[in-house]
Protein backbone atom coordinates (compact mmCIF):
# COMPACT_ATOMS: atom_id res chain seq x y z
CA UNK A 1 0.00 0.00 0.00
CA UNK A 2 2.77 2.43 0.91
CA UNK A 3 4.70 1.92 -2.32
CA UNK A 4 1.47 2.47 -4.26
CA UNK A 5 1.00 5.84 -2.58
CA UNK A 6 4.58 6.78 -3.45
CA UNK A 7 3.86 6.16 -7.11
CA UNK A 8 0.89 8.50 -7.08
CA UNK A 9 3.13 11.27 -5.72
CA UNK A 10 5.47 10.94 -8.66
CA UNK A 11 2.63 11.39 -11.15
CA UNK A 12 2.75 15.21 -11.37
CA UNK A 13 6.33 14.81 -12.51
CA UNK A 14 5.97 11.62 -14.52
CA UNK A 15 3.05 12.72 -16.68
CA UNK A 16 4.64 15.91 -18.09
CA UNK A 17 8.00 14.15 -18.25
CA UNK A 18 6.62 11.38 -20.42
CA UNK A 19 4.43 13.70 -22.49
CA UNK A 20 6.92 16.49 -23.16
CA UNK A 21 10.25 14.73 -22.89
CA UNK A 22 10.15 10.99 -23.58
CA UNK A 23 7.37 10.97 -26.18
CA UNK A 24 8.88 13.74 -28.37
CA UNK A 25 12.25 11.99 -28.23
CA UNK A 26 10.64 8.72 -29.23
CA UNK A 27 8.73 10.49 -31.99
CA UNK A 28 11.90 12.12 -33.27
CA UNK A 29 13.64 8.75 -33.39
CA UNK A 30 10.74 7.26 -35.32
CA UNK A 31 10.67 10.27 -37.64
CA UNK A 32 14.37 9.95 -38.35
CA UNK A 33 13.72 6.55 -39.88
CA UNK A 34 11.27 7.91 -42.46
CA UNK A 35 11.22 10.04 -45.56
CA UNK A 36 8.58 12.04 -47.38
CA UNK A 37 7.17 10.89 -50.68
CA UNK A 38 4.64 12.61 -52.83
CA UNK A 39 2.12 11.37 -55.37
CA UNK A 40 0.52 13.60 -57.93
CA UNK A 41 3.09 16.31 -58.50
CA UNK A 42 3.96 19.34 -56.41
CA UNK A 43 0.55 19.82 -54.90
CA UNK A 44 -0.11 16.12 -54.46
CA UNK A 45 -0.59 13.99 -51.39
CA UNK A 46 2.43 13.33 -49.18
CA UNK A 47 3.09 10.01 -47.54
CA UNK A 48 5.70 9.15 -44.95
CA UNK A 49 7.52 5.97 -45.84
CA UNK A 50 10.04 3.94 -43.93
CA UNK A 51 13.53 4.79 -45.07
CA UNK A 52 15.69 2.83 -42.68
CA UNK A 53 19.03 4.48 -41.99
CA UNK A 54 18.98 6.61 -45.13
CA UNK A 55 18.72 9.89 -43.21
CA UNK A 56 21.51 8.81 -40.87
CA UNK A 57 23.84 7.96 -43.72
CA UNK A 58 23.14 11.40 -45.18
CA UNK A 59 23.91 13.06 -41.88
CA UNK A 60 27.23 11.35 -41.21
CA UNK A 61 28.44 11.92 -44.76
CA UNK A 62 27.37 15.55 -44.94
CA UNK A 63 30.56 17.67 -45.07
CA UNK A 64 28.78 20.65 -43.54
CA UNK A 65 27.65 18.58 -40.55
CA UNK A 66 31.13 17.14 -40.07
CA UNK A 67 32.65 20.62 -40.25
CA UNK A 68 30.20 21.76 -37.59
CA UNK A 69 31.13 18.84 -35.36
CA UNK A 70 34.82 19.63 -35.81
CA UNK A 71 34.08 23.22 -34.93
CA UNK A 72 32.31 22.47 -31.65
CA UNK A 73 34.99 19.93 -30.71
CA UNK A 74 37.70 22.55 -31.28
CA UNK A 75 35.60 25.02 -29.34
CA UNK A 76 35.22 22.56 -26.48
CA UNK A 77 38.87 21.60 -26.32
CA UNK A 78 39.90 25.24 -26.02
CA UNK A 79 37.07 26.98 -24.24
CA UNK A 80 36.08 24.45 -21.56
CA UNK A 81 39.50 24.08 -19.87
CA UNK A 82 40.08 27.84 -19.98
CA UNK A 83 36.67 28.55 -18.50
CA UNK A 84 36.98 25.91 -15.78
CA UNK A 85 40.48 27.09 -14.89
CA UNK A 86 39.15 30.62 -14.62
CA UNK A 87 36.18 29.46 -12.52
CA UNK A 88 38.51 27.53 -10.24
CA UNK A 89 40.73 30.57 -9.85
CA UNK A 90 37.78 32.78 -8.99
CA UNK A 91 36.52 30.22 -6.46
CA UNK A 92 39.95 30.08 -4.83
CA UNK A 93 40.12 33.87 -4.69
CA UNK A 94 36.63 34.05 -3.26
CA UNK A 95 37.41 31.40 -0.67
CA UNK A 96 40.31 33.38 0.71
CA UNK A 97 38.59 36.76 0.52
CA UNK A 98 37.27 38.78 3.41
CA UNK A 99 33.79 37.73 4.51
CA UNK A 100 32.14 41.02 3.52
CA UNK A 101 33.66 41.01 0.06
CA UNK A 102 32.65 37.38 -0.34
CA UNK A 103 28.95 38.16 -0.56
CA UNK A 104 29.35 40.99 -3.04
CA UNK A 105 31.73 39.11 -5.29
CA UNK A 106 29.64 35.97 -5.22
CA UNK A 107 26.71 37.93 -6.59
CA UNK A 108 28.88 39.86 -9.03
CA UNK A 109 30.42 36.71 -10.47
CA UNK A 110 27.08 34.97 -10.81
CA UNK A 111 25.27 37.94 -12.38
CA UNK A 112 26.25 37.19 -16.00
CA UNK A 113 24.57 33.82 -15.72
CA UNK A 114 21.41 35.44 -14.44
CA UNK A 115 20.97 37.31 -17.70
CA UNK A 116 18.99 35.27 -20.24
CA UNK A 117 21.32 33.76 -22.84
CA UNK A 118 19.78 35.46 -25.84
CA UNK A 119 19.91 38.90 -24.22
CA UNK A 120 23.53 38.41 -23.23
CA UNK A 121 24.35 37.35 -26.79
CA UNK A 122 22.55 40.41 -28.17
CA UNK A 123 24.48 42.70 -25.82
CA UNK A 124 27.73 41.14 -26.93
CA UNK A 125 26.65 41.41 -30.56
CA UNK A 126 26.48 45.17 -30.09
CA UNK A 127 29.84 45.13 -28.35
CA UNK A 128 31.35 43.32 -31.33
CA UNK A 129 29.59 45.29 -34.03
CA UNK A 130 32.13 47.30 -36.06
CA UNK A 131 29.92 50.38 -36.26
CA UNK A 132 28.42 50.50 -32.79
CA UNK A 133 30.96 48.96 -30.47
CA UNK A 134 32.79 51.19 -27.98
CA UNK A 135 35.46 48.47 -27.71
CA UNK A 136 36.18 48.60 -31.42
CA UNK A 137 36.29 52.40 -31.22
CA UNK A 138 38.75 52.28 -28.35
CA UNK A 139 41.00 49.81 -30.12
CA UNK A 140 40.85 51.80 -33.34
CA UNK A 141 41.90 54.88 -31.38
CA UNK A 142 44.90 52.94 -30.20
CA UNK A 143 45.70 51.94 -33.79
CA UNK A 144 44.41 48.34 -33.63
CA UNK A 145 41.97 47.30 -36.34
CA UNK A 146 40.10 44.37 -34.83
CA UNK A 147 37.36 42.45 -36.59
CA UNK A 148 35.50 40.44 -33.95
CA UNK A 149 33.08 39.05 -36.49
CA UNK A 150 35.56 37.92 -39.13
CA UNK A 151 35.58 34.33 -40.30
CA UNK A 152 38.65 33.42 -38.25
CA UNK A 153 37.68 35.27 -35.10
CA UNK A 154 33.93 34.81 -34.75
CA UNK A 155 34.22 31.37 -33.15
CA UNK A 156 36.38 32.84 -30.43
CA UNK A 157 34.11 35.82 -30.02
CA UNK A 158 31.34 33.30 -29.35
CA UNK A 159 33.66 31.46 -26.94
CA UNK A 160 34.17 34.76 -25.14
CA UNK A 161 30.42 35.20 -24.67
CA UNK A 162 29.99 31.61 -23.44
CA UNK A 163 32.87 32.01 -20.99
CA UNK A 164 31.43 35.28 -19.71
CA UNK A 165 28.03 33.67 -19.20
CA UNK A 166 29.01 30.42 -17.55
CA UNK A 167 32.18 31.11 -15.55
CA UNK A 168 30.18 32.46 -12.61
CA UNK A 169 27.84 29.48 -12.65
CA UNK A 170 30.72 27.03 -12.64
CA UNK A 171 32.56 29.08 -10.04
CA UNK A 172 29.58 28.82 -7.72
CA UNK A 173 29.50 25.03 -7.96
CA UNK A 174 33.23 24.77 -7.29
CA UNK A 175 32.99 27.33 -4.49
CA UNK A 176 30.19 25.38 -2.82
CA UNK A 177 32.32 22.25 -2.94
CA UNK A 178 35.16 24.23 -1.42
CA UNK A 179 32.97 25.32 1.45
CA UNK A 180 32.36 21.69 2.26
CA UNK A 181 36.02 21.05 3.03
CA UNK A 182 36.26 20.53 6.80
CA UNK A 183 38.25 23.08 8.79
CA UNK A 184 40.29 20.29 10.36
CA UNK A 185 42.01 19.68 7.02
CA UNK A 186 43.08 23.34 6.85
CA UNK A 187 44.29 23.23 10.43
CA UNK A 188 46.34 20.13 9.74
CA UNK A 189 47.81 21.85 6.70
CA UNK A 190 48.73 24.93 8.71
CA UNK A 191 50.36 22.74 11.34
CA UNK A 192 52.38 21.14 8.56
CA UNK A 193 53.51 24.62 7.51
CA UNK A 194 51.54 25.01 4.31
CA UNK A 195 51.08 28.58 3.07
CA UNK A 196 48.10 29.92 1.13
CA UNK A 197 49.20 28.84 -2.34
CA UNK A 198 50.38 25.43 -1.22
CA UNK A 199 47.06 24.87 0.55
CA UNK A 200 45.24 25.87 -2.58
CA UNK A 201 47.25 23.61 -4.85
CA UNK A 202 47.54 20.48 -2.72
CA UNK A 203 44.37 20.58 -0.67
CA UNK A 204 41.62 22.69 -2.12
CA UNK A 205 41.97 21.71 -5.77
CA UNK A 206 42.16 17.94 -5.23
CA UNK A 207 39.24 18.05 -2.83
CA UNK A 208 37.00 19.88 -5.30
CA UNK A 209 37.76 17.43 -8.11
CA UNK A 210 34.18 16.04 -8.08
CA UNK A 211 32.85 19.56 -8.62
CA UNK A 212 35.33 20.11 -11.45
CA UNK A 213 34.25 16.87 -13.10
CA UNK A 214 30.62 17.86 -12.71
CA UNK A 215 31.14 21.28 -14.25
CA UNK A 216 33.27 19.60 -16.91
CA UNK A 217 30.44 17.28 -17.92
CA UNK A 218 27.95 20.16 -17.97
CA UNK A 219 30.31 22.20 -20.10
CA UNK A 220 30.91 19.37 -22.56
CA UNK A 221 27.18 18.82 -22.97
CA UNK A 222 26.57 22.55 -23.32
CA UNK A 223 29.35 22.98 -25.85
CA UNK A 224 28.13 20.15 -28.08
CA UNK A 225 24.68 21.74 -28.05
CA UNK A 226 25.94 25.26 -28.76
CA UNK A 227 23.02 27.14 -30.26
CA UNK A 228 21.99 30.44 -28.61
CA UNK A 229 25.08 32.45 -29.38
CA UNK A 230 25.51 31.22 -32.98
CA UNK A 231 21.91 31.94 -33.87
CA UNK A 232 22.04 35.47 -32.43
CA UNK A 233 25.35 36.13 -34.17
CA UNK A 234 23.93 34.74 -37.40
CA UNK A 235 21.76 37.84 -37.55
CA UNK A 236 24.75 40.18 -37.45
CA UNK A 237 27.35 38.28 -39.44
CA UNK A 238 27.23 36.13 -42.53
CA UNK A 239 30.22 34.20 -41.21
CA UNK A 240 27.90 32.04 -39.14
CA UNK A 241 26.58 29.61 -41.74
CA UNK A 242 23.43 27.55 -41.35
CA UNK A 243 25.52 24.53 -40.31
CA UNK A 244 27.89 26.35 -37.97
CA UNK A 245 27.11 24.00 -35.10
CA UNK A 246 25.25 20.67 -35.31
CA UNK A 247 22.39 22.00 -33.21
CA UNK A 248 22.02 25.01 -35.50
CA UNK A 249 22.03 22.68 -38.50
CA UNK A 250 19.19 20.67 -36.97
CA UNK A 251 17.28 23.90 -36.42
CA UNK A 252 17.72 25.23 -39.95
CA UNK A 253 16.88 21.82 -41.41
CA UNK A 254 13.67 21.73 -39.39
CA UNK A 255 12.89 25.30 -40.43
CA UNK A 256 13.14 24.09 -44.00
CA UNK A 257 10.40 21.57 -43.16
CA UNK A 258 12.74 18.61 -43.57
CA UNK A 259 11.76 16.96 -40.32
CA UNK A 260 13.10 13.44 -40.89
CA UNK A 261 16.58 14.78 -41.61
CA UNK A 262 16.45 17.24 -38.70
CA UNK A 263 15.38 14.38 -36.42
CA UNK A 264 18.32 12.29 -37.62
CA UNK A 265 20.74 15.15 -36.96
CA UNK A 266 19.31 15.59 -33.45
CA UNK A 267 19.60 11.89 -32.67
CA UNK A 268 23.19 11.73 -33.91
CA UNK A 269 24.04 14.82 -31.83
CA UNK A 270 22.35 13.36 -28.74
CA UNK A 271 24.17 10.04 -29.10
CA UNK A 272 27.50 11.81 -29.61
CA UNK A 273 26.88 13.96 -26.52
CA UNK A 274 25.96 10.92 -24.49
CA UNK A 275 29.05 9.00 -25.58
CA UNK A 276 31.41 11.92 -24.95
CA UNK A 277 30.07 12.79 -21.51
CA UNK A 278 29.93 9.13 -20.49
CA UNK A 279 33.53 8.65 -21.62
CA UNK A 280 34.58 11.75 -19.74
CA UNK A 281 32.90 10.52 -16.57
CA UNK A 282 34.47 7.11 -16.91
CA UNK A 283 37.91 8.60 -17.53
CA UNK A 284 37.68 10.76 -14.43
CA UNK A 285 35.89 8.22 -12.24
CA UNK A 286 38.89 7.50 -10.08
CA UNK A 287 39.55 11.16 -9.33
CA UNK A 288 35.99 12.26 -8.91
CA UNK A 289 34.40 9.49 -6.96
CA UNK A 290 31.35 9.76 -9.17
Amino acid at each position, binding site marked *: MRSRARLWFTLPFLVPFVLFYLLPIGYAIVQSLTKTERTGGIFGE*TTTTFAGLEQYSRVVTDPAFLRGVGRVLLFGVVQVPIMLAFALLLALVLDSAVARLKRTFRIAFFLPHGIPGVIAALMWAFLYSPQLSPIVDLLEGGGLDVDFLGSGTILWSIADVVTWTYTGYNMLIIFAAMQAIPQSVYEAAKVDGAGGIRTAWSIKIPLVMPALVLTGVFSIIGTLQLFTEPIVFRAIS*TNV*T*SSYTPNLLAYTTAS*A*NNYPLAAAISVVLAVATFILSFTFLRATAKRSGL
Partner: protein
Amino acid sequence: MSRPAGNWGGSTTAVLSGTEHPAEAARFALWLNTDPEALAMANELGGLFPAANAGEDLPALQGGVGFYGGQEIFSIFQEASGNVDTDFTWGPTMTDTYTAMSDGFTAALNGQGTLSEALTAAQEASRQSLEDQGVQVAD
Protein backbone atom coordinates in the same frame (compact mmCIF):
# COMPACT_ATOMS: atom_id res chain seq x y z
CA MET B 1 15.67 43.38 -72.40
CA SER B 2 17.72 46.44 -71.64
CA ARG B 3 18.43 45.83 -67.98
CA PRO B 4 16.95 42.60 -66.59
CA ALA B 5 15.21 43.10 -63.30
CA GLY B 6 14.27 40.68 -60.58
CA ASN B 7 11.52 40.52 -58.04
CA TRP B 8 12.03 40.55 -54.31
CA GLY B 9 9.38 40.81 -51.65
CA GLY B 10 5.99 42.30 -52.29
CA SER B 11 2.70 40.79 -51.26
CA THR B 12 0.52 37.98 -52.49
CA THR B 13 -3.21 37.60 -52.47
CA ALA B 14 -4.31 33.97 -52.25
CA VAL B 15 -7.66 32.20 -52.36
CA LEU B 16 -7.76 29.28 -49.96
CA SER B 17 -9.01 25.95 -51.28
CA GLY B 18 -11.50 25.44 -48.47
CA THR B 19 -13.39 28.65 -49.10
CA GLU B 20 -17.13 28.65 -49.77
CA HIS B 21 -16.93 31.31 -52.46
CA PRO B 22 -13.81 30.65 -54.52
CA ALA B 23 -15.02 32.44 -57.63
CA GLU B 24 -16.01 35.59 -55.77
CA ALA B 25 -12.80 35.53 -53.77
CA ALA B 26 -10.73 35.19 -56.93
CA ARG B 27 -12.63 38.06 -58.57
CA PHE B 28 -12.03 40.22 -55.52
CA ALA B 29 -8.33 39.36 -55.51
CA LEU B 30 -8.14 40.30 -59.16
CA TRP B 31 -9.99 43.56 -58.55
CA LEU B 32 -7.77 44.39 -55.60
CA ASN B 33 -4.67 44.17 -57.71
CA THR B 34 -5.81 45.59 -61.05
CA ASP B 35 -8.51 48.20 -60.43
CA PRO B 36 -7.03 51.71 -60.76
CA GLU B 37 -8.93 52.99 -57.75
CA ALA B 38 -7.79 50.08 -55.55
CA LEU B 39 -4.21 50.49 -56.76
CA ALA B 40 -4.26 54.22 -56.09
CA MET B 41 -5.49 53.59 -52.55
CA ALA B 42 -2.84 50.90 -51.97
CA ASN B 43 -0.15 53.26 -53.14
CA GLU B 44 -1.39 56.21 -51.11
CA LEU B 45 -2.08 54.35 -47.87
CA GLY B 46 0.43 51.52 -48.05
CA GLY B 47 3.18 52.77 -50.30
CA LEU B 48 2.69 49.80 -52.61
CA PHE B 49 3.90 49.89 -56.20
CA PRO B 50 1.38 48.15 -58.47
CA ALA B 51 2.41 44.91 -60.12
CA ALA B 52 -0.30 45.15 -62.74
CA ASN B 53 0.59 46.95 -65.98
CA ALA B 54 -2.68 48.82 -65.61
CA GLY B 55 -1.21 50.65 -62.66
CA GLU B 56 1.63 52.18 -64.62
CA ASP B 57 -0.42 55.21 -65.64
CA LEU B 58 -1.71 55.99 -62.18
CA PRO B 59 -1.70 59.75 -61.57
CA ALA B 60 -0.20 59.11 -58.11
CA LEU B 61 2.90 57.60 -59.70
CA GLN B 62 3.71 60.57 -61.91
CA GLY B 63 5.59 63.50 -60.47
CA GLY B 64 7.90 63.92 -57.52
CA VAL B 65 7.58 62.48 -54.03
CA GLY B 66 7.89 64.92 -51.14
CA PHE B 67 9.69 62.52 -48.82
CA TYR B 68 12.50 62.16 -51.37
CA GLY B 69 12.84 65.90 -51.91
CA GLY B 70 10.64 66.00 -54.98
CA GLN B 71 12.49 63.30 -56.94
CA GLU B 72 10.52 61.13 -59.38
CA ILE B 73 11.19 57.75 -57.85
CA PHE B 74 8.44 55.76 -59.53
CA SER B 75 9.87 56.05 -63.06
CA ILE B 76 12.73 53.76 -61.98
CA PHE B 77 10.29 51.17 -60.72
CA GLN B 78 8.23 51.47 -63.89
CA GLU B 79 11.29 50.81 -66.06
CA ALA B 80 12.37 47.84 -63.92
CA SER B 81 8.83 46.52 -63.86
CA GLY B 82 8.89 46.21 -67.62
CA ASN B 83 12.13 44.21 -67.47
CA VAL B 84 11.01 41.55 -65.01
CA ASP B 85 10.98 38.02 -66.42
CA THR B 86 7.38 36.96 -65.92
CA ASP B 87 8.23 33.32 -66.67
CA PHE B 88 10.00 33.00 -63.30
CA THR B 89 8.17 30.99 -60.64
CA TRP B 90 9.12 30.82 -57.01
CA GLY B 91 9.97 27.27 -55.92
CA PRO B 92 8.27 25.59 -52.96
CA THR B 93 11.53 25.42 -50.99
CA MET B 94 12.90 28.90 -51.70
CA THR B 95 14.05 29.43 -48.11
CA ASP B 96 16.34 26.42 -48.53
CA THR B 97 17.72 27.99 -51.70
CA TYR B 98 18.36 31.26 -49.86
CA THR B 99 20.17 29.41 -47.06
CA ALA B 100 22.32 27.46 -49.51
CA MET B 101 23.20 30.61 -51.43
CA SER B 102 24.01 32.49 -48.22
CA ASP B 103 26.27 29.70 -46.99
CA GLY B 104 27.95 29.43 -50.38
CA PHE B 105 28.58 33.17 -50.63
CA THR B 106 30.03 33.17 -47.11
CA ALA B 107 32.47 30.46 -48.16
CA ALA B 108 33.33 32.38 -51.34
CA LEU B 109 33.89 35.63 -49.42
CA ASN B 110 36.26 33.78 -47.12
CA GLY B 111 38.30 32.44 -50.00
CA GLN B 112 36.87 28.93 -50.17
CA GLY B 113 35.59 28.65 -53.70
CA THR B 114 34.19 31.13 -56.16
CA LEU B 115 30.81 32.80 -56.33
CA SER B 116 29.83 30.72 -59.37
CA GLU B 117 30.74 27.54 -57.49
CA ALA B 118 28.47 28.78 -54.74
CA LEU B 119 25.63 29.16 -57.24
CA THR B 120 26.20 25.64 -58.57
CA ALA B 121 26.21 24.26 -55.04
CA ALA B 122 23.02 26.19 -54.28
CA GLN B 123 21.38 24.66 -57.34
CA GLU B 124 22.35 21.19 -56.16
CA ALA B 125 21.11 21.93 -52.65
CA SER B 126 17.80 23.22 -54.03
CA ARG B 127 17.35 20.05 -56.05
CA GLN B 128 18.11 18.00 -52.93
CA SER B 129 15.64 19.92 -50.80
CA LEU B 130 12.92 19.49 -53.43
CA GLU B 131 13.56 15.76 -53.59
CA ASP B 132 13.44 15.63 -49.79
CA GLN B 133 9.89 16.93 -50.02
CA GLY B 134 9.06 14.21 -52.51
CA VAL B 135 8.92 16.50 -55.54
CA GLN B 136 10.36 15.08 -58.76
CA VAL B 137 12.90 17.39 -60.33
CA ALA B 138 13.36 17.49 -64.08
CA ASP B 139 16.92 17.58 -65.32
